[in-house]
């Protein structure tokens, strides 16, 4: 049986666990082995993991980069071994990549900006909790969000911008800090739901009325939106990403798909709750 490898930035985030599950199901259906390695958000471990996948002679490498630049040498190593590479959810900034399968994160950032703008009536102070610096997801969401505010919603200003590395615990502590420092905050945009839920925890403890928008639509976040603890979340489809990636890989294996650089966007939608005030 042929094997394909999947190097994930971290499996400590339910988003990627779902992505992995989608990939596993697709692999079972396609009749290939799937080797999943967890980089634990460490750039150096991810490089070593991909090297080991190349060594193991997997037929295709699927990569969800921890950092866009740091992963490049590893991708080049796979290229040198003539193993096709597909990036999933986050992009690499170099190397030869056959497909890039991800949400259109710039569009997702815009979606969040438009929603918040309307919610705040075009005026207010926003805090932005950034994902891992150097990951394309964080960069693109930040770009989409901020460009949109500057272009179409000048009344809303970003008063604090800090990274919480896509992590819930850090979302809590960073938000606690920001709450101490900033007197006037109307809303928070977090680059993912884990950070958003951490921020919600801090905001509840402070008792201040602040709207929170997240990204991913994880089960927890959807529950929070339904309970009016979060205003909205931009839904990604991680299982779909995993499935698509494995299917593309299988097609490459059979030679039924061409190996050319192509971005395959995965649909996004906003999950909100109109019954909250």
């Amino acid at each position, binding site marked *: 049986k042929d094997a394909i490898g999947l190097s994930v930035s971290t*499996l*400590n*985030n*339910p988003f*990627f*666990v779902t992505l992995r599950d989608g990939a596993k199901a697709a692999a079972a259906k396609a009749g290939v082995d799937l080797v999943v390695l967890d980089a634990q958000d460490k750039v150096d471990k991810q490089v070593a993991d991909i090297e080991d996948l190349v060594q193991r002679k997997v037929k295709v490498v699927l990569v969800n980069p921890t950092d866009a630049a740091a992963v490049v040498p590893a991708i080049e190593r796979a290229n040198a071994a003539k193993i096709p590479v597909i990036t999933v959810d986050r992009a690499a900034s170099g190397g030869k990549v056959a497909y890039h399968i991800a949400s259109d994160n710039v569009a997702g950032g815009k979606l969040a900006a438009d929603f918040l703008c309307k919610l705040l009536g075009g005026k207010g102070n926003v805090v932005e909790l950034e994902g891992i610096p150097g990951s394309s997801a964080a960069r693109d969401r930040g770009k989409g969000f901020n460009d949109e505010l500057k272009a179409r919603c000048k009344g809303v200003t970003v008063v604090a911008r*800090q990274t919480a590395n896509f*992590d*819930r*615990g850090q979302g*809590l502590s*960073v938000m*606690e*800090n920001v709450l*101490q*420092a900033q007197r006037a905050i109307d809303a928070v945009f977090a680059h993912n739901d884990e950070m958003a*839920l*951490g921020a919600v*925890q801090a905001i*509840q*403890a402070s008792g201040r009325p602040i709207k929170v928008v997240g990204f991913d639509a994880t*089960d*927890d976040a959807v*529950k929070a939106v339904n309970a009016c603890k979060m205003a909205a979340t931009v839904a990604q489809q991680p299982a779909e990403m995993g499935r698509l990636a494995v299917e593309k890989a299988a097609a490459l294996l059979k030679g039924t798909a061409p190996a050319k650089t192509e971005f395959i966007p995965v649909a996004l939608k906003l999950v909100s709750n109109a019954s909250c005030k």
Partner: protein
Amino acid sequence: MSPARLREWLSRYGILLAFVVLAAALSILSPSFLEPSNLLNVLRQISVNALLAFGMTTVIVGGGIDLSVGSVLAFSGALAAGAAMAGWAPALAMIAALVLGAGMGLVNGFFVAGARIAPFIATLGGLTIFRGATLVYTDGRPITGLPDAFGVLGNGAFGGVPVPVWVMLGFLALTHFLLRYTGLGRNVYAVGGNEEAARLSGLPIVKVKLFTYAYAGLASALGALVLTGRLNSAQPTAGSGFELDAIAAVVVGGTSLSGGRGSVLGTFVGAAIIGVLNNGMNLLNVSAFYQQIVKGGVILGALLIDRLVATRKE
């Protein structure tokens, strides 16, 4: 007071003094610092670190060290949450987690006391293993939707004081009593201070060490319950890196890393210094990146002054 006792008192007083100076400076710089609500806020924020640090003090006084506290916290938190989700009564799930936390500590203790592997490396193994076990158990996903009882432990209040603060103070009193006023506690000092002497005095070295690690495990599990409540969920990554914070609180509080000396009251002051520092920098709007520099600098500075005072007195 004999000169030696005076010196000891002064050297403890040195850190208290540092604390008072720090607090005074902050209350001048930021008017909101001294508000009762902020003080309670600081106490709540330090509660988890303080709980771990109390357990860590016990281990360190006994001549060891425990790097696995953060992982034990994560695992016992996940187990408590998992049990509750499986339908156990919350109280029962919590008690089970405390017992299991102590059990994980015992495993560490076995490698240190039974197999005589250096504590640093034995508990480094524990750090890796219990973290892995947490990931396997939770499948990398947070456990959410916990019964309200957990939230009360993390975010509730009683008589105007947050529940985590009560838990912390209760455990402080318990640990202080244990170390200071029980035969077992004195044996911990003896084993940490001079293991050979303790052995020749017929003390049960292995049991004493097992106890210290089990106690640290218990403290971690207690911290897990508070943190799970505060985050309203059990996180697979909870507690990573907490071991270094806990050790910092212990050392700043005047406990010697070579064992046999120290007190949990000092550790409390140590944890408070670190907490006040974090809180103060937030109030003063020090940028997050600079906070780390300032924090490291202030801690080293405090120890430096402490050292100078101690040396002058020698």
